[in-house]
């Protein structure tokens, strides 16, 4: 099937699975607009490699999404520029940014380096094991573990949330590796 025909397949796929995928992209990228751009970038890669993709494109699309996010996506500089902007008063926020700013921690997530953020989203949102997250990020489970640990530590510092422990949420840390 040619990439042109893939449009219909992917539109149908997005109608069914697009919302959760876009939510993931929004968390990975930091805002609604950036999330859409990220997902669009991943879709472009899917078109590029469409002939090699067999069956359901979701797995490939997700993997691409995570890769783009973990690689800092467009560039580290762009990311740093964003961080700078977030700290500036008077910057008119995109109305859609407001959606994911309702929660302080998700907002703070944007301040983590891309790999830490991706590792946290994979573990806490996608509920992947360390081994699964390592597989999609193309690194070792140890790297994922370390990225998650550092990311959580940084979030703790930024949010001021104490290091209290709950025993009543069995899936909150994701499945065991």
């Amino acid at each position: 099937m040619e990439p042109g025909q893939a449009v219909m397949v992917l539109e149908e796929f997005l109608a069914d699975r697009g919302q959760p995928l876009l939510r993931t992209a929004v968390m990975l990228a930091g805002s609604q607009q950036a999330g859409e751009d990220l997902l669009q970038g991943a879709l472009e890669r899917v078109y590029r490699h469409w002939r090699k993709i067999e069956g359901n494109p979701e797995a490939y699309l997700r993997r691409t999404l995570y890769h783009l996010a973990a690689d800092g996506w467009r560039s580290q500089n762009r990311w740093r520029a964003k961080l700078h902007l977030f700290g500036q008063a008077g910057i008119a926020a995109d109305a859609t940014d407001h959606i994911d700013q309702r929660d302080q921690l998700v907002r703070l997530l944007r301040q983590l380096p891309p790999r830490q953020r991706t590792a946290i989203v994979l573990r806490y949102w996608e509920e992947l094991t360390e081994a699964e997250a390592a597989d999609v990020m193309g690194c070792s489970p140890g790297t994922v573990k370390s990225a998650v640990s550092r990311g959580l530590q940084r979030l703790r510092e930024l949010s001021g949330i104490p290091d209290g422990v709950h025993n009543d949420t069995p899936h909150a840390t994701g499945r065991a590796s």
Partner: protein
Amino acid sequence: MTTELERQLRAGMERVEARDPSGLAVRAYRRYRRRRRTIRALAATGTAVAVAGMATALASARATSSQETQASAGVGSRVGGALAQVSGDMLYTRTTYTPPGSTGRKWNLTIVWSYHQRIRSTEYSLAGRPYWDTGITMVAGPWSIRAVNVDYPARTVMRITGGSDQGGLTVPAGGPVAPPPAYCSVYMPPATGSNLLQGGASPAAWAKYFKAVLACGQFRVAGQQRLGGTDTIKLVDVPSRQRGYRPETVWLDPSTYLPVAMEYTDHPGTQTRTIFEWLPPTKANLAHLNVPVPAGFKQVKQQQLP
């Protein structure tokens, strides 16, 4: 066991919302096509020049059968000599896609004007309106390119400048890319044919192209055929497991041995057909190389190529 931070993080993630992503696949496809088209057009200018230097790489070429070898060799040897008879070296081509709208294309007609280092390619929508209009000029001296692309549906215009000192699109500073080491081991037509088409290749480049593909057995002579009132020599692509195979047929003018028409099947059910005309570079014809930018179109930033 989980910490308060992890619990809150997960709860916050549950509250993240996202807009309806419908239309995203279409937007991504448009951008994919735009990039691909830009890259191909830019690469083609290099390919067209590179092909001109390939003839010497064909010494070890093979042919499919002795009869075809002789026929193909006969055509190949006459191609070079026929160039002097060409009335003009400005190429006009008209490419149509059947059925219209197949493979998700929003256009079903491509008109290309090319002359020396300038080329203009215009796509027309199914309704017959301009869809894309791209002009590329290979700048003399440094190996660099200037391009302009008008996107009618988006009402935008993008200007691209590339060269070793521009920091934008870059083309090898040393000149055209080197020919592949094993010319016939890679899939060429219609990729090369269409690249030549897009790249504004001269009659000489076309001639060398056909010499090459005949010499290495990639095409074979399949007789003569009357096409549009003219007798033509018909060449067909030779299937090869190594190269892959997409059926391609080329009809050559027997007096000049330049292509009259080219047709290939992109994938089952979709045919691309190109009609060629070689024209003198009159003032009126040269004016077709200019890309007009309609008033009110927004200038967008140079596209970042992957």
